[in-house]
């Protein structure tokens, strides 16, 4: 089943991973290899551990056991090098936060800014290296949000919010893109735009990994599918993995699109990683 991966370069390699929330194990014995330069969809029912897997990859949750490597090195090193971009679910963001679209997307550059000269970092934005503004500009152009750059993020529509989150991930110019349900709850034009952007990223050699409930979209666009429900239930080509029989086995409806398996933020969040 995984033969198509064997001869390819591997972007993220997960080995014997276990993860748990408060002693409740949500991921067990995960062995996975995400092929480099490909577009992978992670599919599974609600509560299957898809978002948890992303929490482990982004470092906001510690695995109980197991290792995660990116291009053969511990993934933490790639995070510090700004090579792992992450697009959060819309519910994970505080949209009342007083920042503009431009500033939000600039957040994707904060990792790279650590490499800038100290004097630049201590001064206001206009003294920053020009390449940061260029990356933000390009990312906003790519998602067709450049004319909204000055607006506060709270004033955007649902689809626009998704596009801004995507732009933030793009602005990072990372080699690996992790997207948690990039298509959930967006209007059809935004969905088409997001899929087109992701296809361009993949063609540019980036590794794209997304959690999705959009089966038609996944069948049409992605190269590789991972079925997950606490354990890995299968990996392979979309045509094999996304058959009705396979999906029924996995207990996901093939037309289910909008469900999210993550709760909204708690009222008084406290722990450092998730607060």
């Amino acid at each position, binding site marked *: 089943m995984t033969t198509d991966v064997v001869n390819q370069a591997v972007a993220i390699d997960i080995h014997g991973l276990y993860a748990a929330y*408060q002693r409740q194990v949500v991921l067990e014995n995960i062995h996975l290899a995400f092929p480099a330069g490909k577009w992978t969809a992670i599919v599974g029912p609600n509560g299957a551990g898809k978002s948890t897997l992303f*929490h482990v990859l*982004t*470092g*906001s949750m510690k695995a109980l056991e197991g290792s995660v490597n990116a291009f053969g090195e511990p993934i*933490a090193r790639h*995070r*510090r*090098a*700004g090579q*792992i*971009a*992450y697009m*959060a679910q819309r519910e*994970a*963001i*505080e949209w*009342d*936060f*007083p*920042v*503009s679209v431009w*500033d*939000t997307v600039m*957040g*994707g550059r*904060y*990792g790279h*800014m650590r490499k800038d000269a100290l004097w630049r*970092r*201590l001064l206001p934005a206009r003294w920053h290296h020009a390449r940061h503004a260029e990356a933000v500009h390009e990312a906003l152009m790519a998602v067709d949000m450049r004319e909204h750059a000055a607006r*506060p993020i*709270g004033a955007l529509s649902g689809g626009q919010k998704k596009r801004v989150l995507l732009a*933030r991930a793009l602005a*990072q110019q990372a080699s690996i893109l*992790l997207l948690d349900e990039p298509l959930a709850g967006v209007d059809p034009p935004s969905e088409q735009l997001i899929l087109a952007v992701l296809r361009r990223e993949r063609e540019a050699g980036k590794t794209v990994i997304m959690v999705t409930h959009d089966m038609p979209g996944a069948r049409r666009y992605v190269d590789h599918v991972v079925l997950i429900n606490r354990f890995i239930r299968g990996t392979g080509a979309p045509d094999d993995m996304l058959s009705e029989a396979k999906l029924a086995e996995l207990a996901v409806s093939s037309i289910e699109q909008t469900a999210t398996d993550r709760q909204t933020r*708690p*009222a*008084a*969040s*406290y*722990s*450092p*990683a*998730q*607060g």
Partner: protein
Amino acid sequence: MLIIEALSDALVNGLIAALMAVVNLLPASVSDAFQYAFMQRALLTSVLVGAICGMLSCYVVLKRWSLLGDAISHAVLPGVAVAYLLGWPFFVGAFITGALTSVGIGAIERNTRIKADAAMGLMFTASFALGVVIISKLASSTHLMHILFGNVLGVKHSALMLTFVASIIAILTVWLAYRPLLLYAFDPQQAQALGFNTQIIHYGLILLLTLTIVASLETVGIILVVAMLITPGATAHLLTDRFKVMLLISVSIGVCSAVIGLWLSVVFNVASGGAIVLVAFSMFILALLFSPKQGLVFRQWRHRKRV
């Protein structure tokens, strides 16, 4: 050490002189109150405390840490009492009990079925009770009252210096760590994905909060400091959609309410901590009513125009 002391002495005196230059421009009925040395010390302390509380309150409000701020402010009491007993600087003891309490809250929350709000309520009241017991055994009730409600008119030179140094540290930290703090407040998971150490940022922010609370001890006291850690930020949040502007507005509100509250407390001979907090609250009410975007008055007016 001597050089640093002399330097900060000079800086404090310079700041007082600068403040007085401004105050003396005001009508004599106002500026007369500030001609005494103790009033000038009180004025500078209030300005500093208003500024750093206003600055930190932006993070407290946006991060939904109001209850945590309240918890830490109460939890520092036993630390302050023990430090007083041992002759240590207040900050050391306060930070130890403040940090212990916040670690305890996290541990209870993670390892039991008790939720965050109950864990906070539990830990900070216990810590506060311990403080009350220690102080009642060691010191007079006047001491307790001063720590609980502040005593800005009795601020000693040493306490002013502590507030001054704490303010410099707080402002420098927010300046140097501006982006990590902003990203952490906005989206901690993104901060983590970019390789920032969110544990360090988290506890750094708690440390900053504790520092601010200790610095405010003499001005508003540990019961009312939480008002200064919420009100300016909440007011500023109603007035702007830009974080930097929010910081500026919040600091201005903190400083203005501290100065106006101090002056009113002298004129009407009432407790200064309470007066400062009430002035800040009135500013919040004004913003609530008249903020261009969020204000109730303009909203009602727009609503009526639509109908």
